[in-house]
């Protein structure tokens, strides 16, 4: 099993979610995060003092999937989260030793 984490643009959550569902993903966990990178935030002014909001609102979408599904999920992100502009985000794939479903205590892939 792997954990596939993607940083995406908040307003694309809907399309990403549907795409993942079609790709067979049954569950995911989403976190509101602030991103720092090539995409620079809007510069704002407050009472005459200009300032850059350097941290851009992003969403982190975590999906735990069986080895077999990893590539499918990754490419799903590449399609559904892309605008082509700075700030589209990244996909991280990391190893996972085990998954347990609390409700049923199932372990491993069957727990996903």
């Amino acid at each position: 099993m792997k954990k596939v984490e993607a940083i995406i643009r908040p307003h694309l959550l809907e399309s990403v979610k549907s795409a993942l569902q079609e790709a067979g993903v049954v569950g995911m966990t989403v976190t509101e995060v602030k991103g720092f990178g090539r995409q620079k935030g809007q510069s704002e002014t407050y009472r005459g003092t200009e300032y850059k909001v350097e941290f851009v609102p992003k969403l982190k979408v975590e999906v735990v999937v069986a080895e077999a599904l990893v590539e499918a999920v990754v490419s799903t992100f590449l399609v559904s989260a892309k605008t082509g502009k700075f700030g589209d985000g990244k996909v991280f794939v990391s190893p996972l030793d085990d998954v347990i479903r609390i409700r049923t205590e199932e372990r491993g892939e069957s727990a996903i």
Partner: protein
Amino acid sequence: MRAFRAPATLRAYASFRALLALTAAALAAVASPDPLLAQDAATAEAIALLQRHADFVWTILAAVLVLLMQAGFSLIEVGMTRAKNAVNICMKNIMDLSMGSLAFWLVGFGIMFGPSGGWFGTGSFMLSDYATEQDPWLYAFWIFQTVFAATAATIVSGAVAERTKFSVYIMYSIFLTAIVYPVFGSWAWGSLYKGDGWLEGLGFIDFAGSTVVHSVGGWGALAGAMVVGPRLGRFTVEGKPRAMPGHNLVYVTLGMFILWFGWFGFNAGSTTAATVDIALIAVNTNLSAAAGALAAMITAWLFLKKPDATMTINGALAGLVGITAGCANVVPGAAILIGLAAGALVVFSVLFFDRRQIDDPVGAISVHGVCGAWGTLAAGLFNAGGVTLAIIGTQLLGIVAAFVWVFGTMFAFFKIVDATVGMRVSAEEEIAGLDVFEHGNEAYGPDTFSADVGGVTA
């Protein structure tokens, strides 16, 4: 809209009724054997009419100030509870004013002010007297009394917040404004119109309603909080109270200022006449509120280590409730003492009910019930006209009568409702919040917290 008046004819400024009066007199003056008297009569009538106009303006504006207090109560209750129940609390307050106005029009006013044998009125429903008597003052008096009834109703809302079914609350709201409040009101204030209450007959002093409005609301709140029980997790298994911080103390502060503002309509407006007396009442109201806030803050600082905001705010309200009965018959110095005592009292009262495991998220029982009783007693103790045992006795009698009647009827009402339809929401609903289950709404949309996480789909 009324047409612009040209200044040329100053006379025209007097409302047409005043004109009628004058013309009538003019005619009379001609006819009358003694024009002097006729003219005097006409002038006196015109003067009386002017005073009447001033009374209407004052009373309507005072009623409007009291009406805004609904916003103050809503903000305090919403702010001192959790976000997941904010919509429900708003809806309860909206219904207190809406249902309350209609129920008081339909039934309440007649019971409170209709012809009565001392116990409750039996006529003057639905503003029917106007048809026969054609006196517009009925309307001014009615709107002022209506916003008072709505105020009594809304007091309970906070005490039973976060766990009571909306449908049950509506039933309660109608019951209180249609029956419970008016019946007691008829005992103390019935003779303001066509009633004749046994309590006022004894000389009971409650100028603007420390007991008639606030204690009535407060004891209803006590009954409700006892029957519905505390919020999940509010007390540990050993019965130790656990903190459940409100979700927005800025709302609470704004609510307090709005109540402080509206209270001038509540107290000074109770003259329902444009007289010089309103000044003393306003001064007493302000000084007692100020003293209440100060005393509560100091009490909290001494006994709870820090100047707690919600206690200080409860203190200001305690001072306002405390001076309500005696605002017209005590001197400013006494108003300060009344407020100081109320402010200290409310803090200990809140801690007391906490220890008794009666869960009152906003302190309504302490502020309105307990301090309402204190204020009623104080109106006797500090009576500028002098104090006698008889006066104190009557005040105590009124306090007890209010408790017995209101707590009795409301406790029975809530028990019956609870036994039948059930007063409390399910644990699942309480955990998730009443907003979603009862109203299908959320007070704070997704993007209060960010972009559209949990974005909505058709």
